[in-house]
Structure formats: structure tokens, C-alpha cells
């Protein structure tokens, strides 16, 4: 049969953000494929060099749209490392609550997002509803639903509102009781198993070749390679949680890990609320004028564990009031660009969207 060119995206139910997968197909088998990024390139790395350290906080959540808090955290950690700044104890715990809520929301979005390519839209509606409840909590804490700008250099912007911990606990208990329903509707559903089991495999040896991190790696390698465990930041070394793994990485295993991680995040949130001390939540980061403070010279890389893998900011300071260079290591860079080019060929057209969804490919962080 003649080879034909097909596009997945830029707009597609299985594509989160605007990027396009170009596929050369023979019948319904992909022969060659590559990702065409660039549709969401907004020149953030250049813009950050022209803005004050504080001003950048308004810019960075836009780097990854579905999960913005990791950007704020990574940027804040990197700057605090350059400043050698110790932030108050309570701020660490509030940051962890925010990050874990964000992780649950990102996982729900990805887990429900599988409904798009597989046609199981009920799952998507349920997941989006629960994500919406998390956004409600965020709105009460930070005043914004998606881009919070809450984790800032030197702590968090303001203390938690009164009574929010009770609401968070109510929500996570409710979600915990319904996780079994999510499993029934998604990965344990007979028709879904037929569709997603043994599709788009990620073999173990491929992981190191690609440089994949996060759920993609843990599902293939079977080891608890999670930055929260291996090189803990914030206070992740003081909470107990497990890192779910598997040694057989197909679409179903990766979704299974996502829903298990939601359970672990709930456990972390409960412990945070219990252990969180009282006290101040923010310190002033620098001397001098209120915003035009400077940061000492240095190079630093601040990695954190996002829902898709290792996410980090590489920051260089020249001793000035603006960063000299900010580099963003998008978590979906390896699986999004190299993974689609090398490991999609041989699979079927309709499985391409499953790769994009279960490996967690976020187009805006590839483009920046």
C-alpha cells in the first residue's frame, strides 16, 4: 500500500496543548513519525532574562499549563539556593500541600484524558469534575484557579485561610473513597482493558536511551526512582509515602501507577496537615529596594518531581537584578520528541494518542 501522511493534532482530544504528530502510515501502522513543536513557543526563556526576579513569578506558571505549581516551586527553590535563603518551616509544609493537590489534579486530568482517545467520555467527565473541586480549593487558598503564583521566593504568598484544612481533608477523604470507582471505570473496565492493555510498550532498555523520567521510567524499570524519595526537597523526607512501580510498562500499567500515586498524594496531604507547625510563612528574599534586589553569582539546577517526571530550572545569576539565563528542563522533552520519533513507529494510528496521554506530554513545556 502507498505510504500516506496523517496528522494527530494540533487540535485533538488526545493532545494536551497544541503540538502536532506527523505520521507516515501504511494501512493503519505508523511507519515514521515525528513531533512538530513550536506552536506554543512564547520565548519565555528570553523574556525571563529581561524581567526582575520577582516579576518572573507572574510568567513562569504559563510554562506548563495543566500543572503550573511545579514551575513556581522549581523557580523558588533555584533562587533560594542562589540566595542561600532559609525559608520558614510552615512554608515548606504549605508548599507540599499545594504541590500534592496539583499532582492529584494533573493525574486526574491525565487519567480522565484517556477518555478522549478511547471514547470513554464518562471517565473524563468524572475526573474533570473532581479536578474542578481541587480548583475550588485553590481558589480559596490563592485567589486563582489555574495560575496561582502562590509559591514565591522566600516562602508562600500568604498563610492558608482559616478552616481550609478541614475542607481539604473532606475533599481528599471523599476522593479516596471514590478511587475504587475510578479504577472500575477506567483500568479495570473490561472494554478498556481490551483497548489499552499491551499497547504502546516502553521496554526497560529504552528508558535510559530516551532519558525518560517519572511514571514512564518507574513503570518500566520497577524501581522507586522518584526525586521526592531519592533527593528530597521541601520536607518530603519527613513524610511517609510509597512510590508505586511496575516492571511491565504498557498504557494500562502507567494509568494504574497514576491512580496509585493519587492515593499516595492523599496520604502525604493528610500527614502535612497533621504535622504542619504554626508560624510565619514568608521571609524577605533580598536587601535593598522592595523589588530590585540582587542575587549572588552562581549556576544552579533545581529538579523536582512533577506528575510527568523530572522537572527543573537551570538558573544562572550574574549578580544582577534579573536572571542571566533561565533554562527550563521540560519533563516531557524526551518522551515527547525522541520517544515519538523512535518508538511510535510500529504501533497503530489510534495508539499514538495513548502514548501522548499516558506518557504525559505537555506541549507548552516543550516549546516554552
Amino acid at each position: 500500500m502507498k505510504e500516506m501522511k496523517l496528522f494527530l493534532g494540533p487540535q485533538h482530544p488526545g493532545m494536551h496543548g497544541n503540538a502536532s504528530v506527523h505520521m507516515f502510515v501504511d494501512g493503519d501502522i505508523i511507519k515514521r513519525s515525528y513531533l512538530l513543536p513550536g506552536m506554543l513557543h512564547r520565548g519565555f526563556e528570553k523574556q525571563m532574562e529581561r524581567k526582575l526576579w520577582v516579576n518572573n513569578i507572574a510568567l513562569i506558571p504559563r510554562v506548563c499549563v495543566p500543572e503550573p505549581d511545579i514551575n513556581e516551586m522549581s523557580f523558588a527553590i533555584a533562587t533560594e539556593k542562589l540566595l542561600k535563603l532559609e525559608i520558614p518551616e510552615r512554608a515548606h509544609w504549605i508548599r507540599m500541600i499545594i504541590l500534592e493537590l496539583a499532582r492529584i489534579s494533573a493525574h486526574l486530568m491525565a487519567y480522565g484524558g484517556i477518555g478522549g482517545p478511547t471514547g470513554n467520555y464518562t471517565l473524563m467527565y468524572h475526573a474533570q469534575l473532581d479536578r474542578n473541586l481541587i480548583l475550588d480549593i485553590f481558589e480559596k487558598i490563592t485567589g486563582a484557579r489555574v495560575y496561582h503564583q502562590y509559591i514565591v521566593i522566600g516562602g508562600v504568598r500568604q498563610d492558608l485561610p482559616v478552616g481550609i484544612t478541614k475542607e481539604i481533608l473532606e475533599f481528599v477523604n471523599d476522593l479516596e473513597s471514590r478511587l475504587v470507582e475510578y479504577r472500575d471505570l477506567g483500568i479495570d473496565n473490561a472494554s478498556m482493558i481490551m483497548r489499552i492493555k499491551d499497547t504502546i510498550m516502553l521496554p526497560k532498555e529504552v528508558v535510559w536511551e530516551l532519558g525518560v523520567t517519572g511514571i514512564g521510567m518507574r513503570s518500566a524499570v520497577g524501581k522507586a526512582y522518584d526525586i521526592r524519595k531519592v533527593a528530597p526537597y521541601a520536607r518530603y523526607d519527613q513524610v511517609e509515602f510509597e512510590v508505586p512501580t511496575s516492571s511491565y510498562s504498557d498504557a494500562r500499567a502507567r494509568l494504574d501507577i497514576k491512580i496509585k500515586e493519587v492515593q499516595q498524594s492523599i496520604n502525604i496531604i493528610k500527614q502535612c496537615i497533621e504535622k504542619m507547625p504554626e508560624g510565619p510563612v514568608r521571609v524577605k528574599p533580598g536587601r535593598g529596594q522592595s523589588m530590585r534586589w540582587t542575587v549572588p553569582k552562581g549556576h544552579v539546577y533545581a529538579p523536582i518531581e512533577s506528575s510527568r517526571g523530572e522537572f527543573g530550572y537551570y538558573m544562572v545569576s550574574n549578580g544582577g537584578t534579573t536572571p542571566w539565563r533561565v533554562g527550563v528542563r521540560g519533563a516531557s522533552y524526551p518522551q515527547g520528541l525522541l520517544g515519538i520519533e523512535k518508538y511510535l513507529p510500529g504501533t497503530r494510528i489510534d495508539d499514538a494518542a495513548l502514548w501522548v496521554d499516558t506518557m504525559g506530554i505537555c506541549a507548552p513545556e516543550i516549546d516554552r
Partner: protein
Amino acid sequence: MMNSMNNIKEVEDLVNKTVKVLKTENIDKNQIAFEIEKLEVHRLLTVLKNTGWIQLSYLSAIDWPDENKFEVVYIVFNWEKPVYIQVRTKIDRGNPVMESILPIFPGAKYYEREAHEFFGIAFPGNPDYEKQLILENWDDIPPLRKDFDPSAYSARKFPSREYPQDFSVKDPNNKTLEKTEERKKRAKALRVGGKKQ
């Protein structure tokens, strides 16, 4: 995991044994940076990869126009001994060439393409480092260089428009302007509590 300071020391010994280190920076208990010569990067990365630093986390460049240099940075990570190692090297800015590390880390392919696109560094050994990736039909100097001015570029690329017809409010029958003024006055009155100023 507990003896992370030992890990850092181990790394320092290993690197010092392998190559000539120009500068060492201890960043924190999980991170260390080495500045080395350009020609020794591949040797060091090979040794590190064989010792367990199997993950290439990041590859990029920094522009230092005052020194007339580009600094290429590689960050590698070992999941068993959690130490991030920054390997940095300075290359000439006038003729920026850095041999590709594709044989060592195949995952570097797209990072190198991006570094070429944004800094203009050539990576011989990478078969398609010159292909365009993110910027479409770019016709200026690479944008992350410090001498690239975004405002000048945008003024050149997107000149301010000349409209054939003047759409500003001038029509005598058009009361939009007066209504806006009226609304502003009312809002001001509300702000001062209805009192005359």
C-alpha cells in the same frame, strides 16, 4: 542516600582523577559543578555514564559576550547515588563548535538541536542538528544570544499598522466618548462617597 556528603566526595575524587578540573562549585548536598576543558567533556561523560550517571537531565548553553565565550552545560544524574553533576565548558563565541555527545547519550539529540537553534552552536556528529525545531523560518541571529534585541526584532517584523480609514471617535452623532466620560465621573463620585471635592 543517607551519606550524601560521601557521594559528593566520591564524585569529586572520580572527576579529579579523570580530567583536569578548572573550577569546582559545591552547590548543595545533591549537586556539584565542574568546569573543564572542551576536549575532555566526552571522556568525563563516558566515565560518568559507565560509573552510574546514566541519565542526561539537561543540556544547554549560556552566552557570555564579555568574555566572548559560550558555556555549554551538561547535567547528569545517578539514581543510586543521588548527585546531580553539572559539567560545564567554555567554547569560542566567534566559531561555536562542540562535538555531539550523541554516541554517549542518545537522548541529547533534541537538546542539541535546540541549542543550535537558540545559540547557533554547531554540533558535528548529530545528523540533524541544523534542522529547524521550534522557530519557524527564523531570519535573525539566534534569539537567546545576548546581542539579540526582541523589541527591535518585533519592530522590524511587525511594523505598526497604517489604517486606511480613521476609526477613532469623531462622528458628531456618536456619543460613545461622552458616555464614557459620564461613566468615569459617576465612578469617581462613588469612590469619594458622593461628596463634592
